[in-house]
């Protein structure tokens, strides 16, 4: 079965620091890739996605992610975080499985706390 690994479970930063959250997946076929964010008390929402084309994708609120196929990675970055970025971040992979079904698989999440 496919799996998604998020290397950092808890990250604490000061405002204006740069952020990089790692995400690796274990599936060799075609994938669609996502980062979702869950702000405190809110529902999960899409931050950015990659389906095909330019491997560097830009999302909302200044976030970007780079798909490196050879490394099975889809790391999330932001050059300068803000206090309002405090949230939980989930990487998700939709692989093409046998029979033609994509089933989304999520990583365990990274809790980001940004100090003002």
């Amino acid at each position, binding site marked *: 079965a496919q799996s998604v690994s998020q290397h950092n479970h808890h990250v604490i930063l000061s405002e204006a620091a740069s952020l990089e959250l790692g995400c690796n997946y274990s599936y060799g076929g075609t994938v669609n890739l*996502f980062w979702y964010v869950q702000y405190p008390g809110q529902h999960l929402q899409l931050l950015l996605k990659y389906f095909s084309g330019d491997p560097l994708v830009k999302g909302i609120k200044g976030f970007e992610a780079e798909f490196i196929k050879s490394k099975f990675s889809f790391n999330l970055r932001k050059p300068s975080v803000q206090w309002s970025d405090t949230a939980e971040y989930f990487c998700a992979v939709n692989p093409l499985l046998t029979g033609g079904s994509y089933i989304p698989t999520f990583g365990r999440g990274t809790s980001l706390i940004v100090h003002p």
Partner: protein
Amino acid sequence: DVKVTQSSRYLVKRTGEKVFLECVQDMDHENMFWYRQDPGLGLRLIYFSYDVKMKEKGDIPEGYSVSREKKERFSLILESASTNQTSMYLCASSLRHGDEIGELFFGEGSRLTVL
């Protein structure tokens, strides 16, 4: 905006009770999902459905069943609740483009406590 509505935000049930969690989406999405979210474990897929009356087991289907009688509604059923089913339950829906599942739209979650 897509809206995914879960009927109950908070529930408290007793061991052995039957529990129904309801989810309704208003965007005519083909796919619907039930996940449970636990600290440190992320989101784990319980069941999903890609069409009315169709269902597929996810990673942790034991102790759960689902029903999808109408396209907009996907219900999660705990036949006999147990304390290890205390969790946050998330419903999601998505479009289907051929064999691809699009981004997921999530409800606000149902926090279930089983005593």
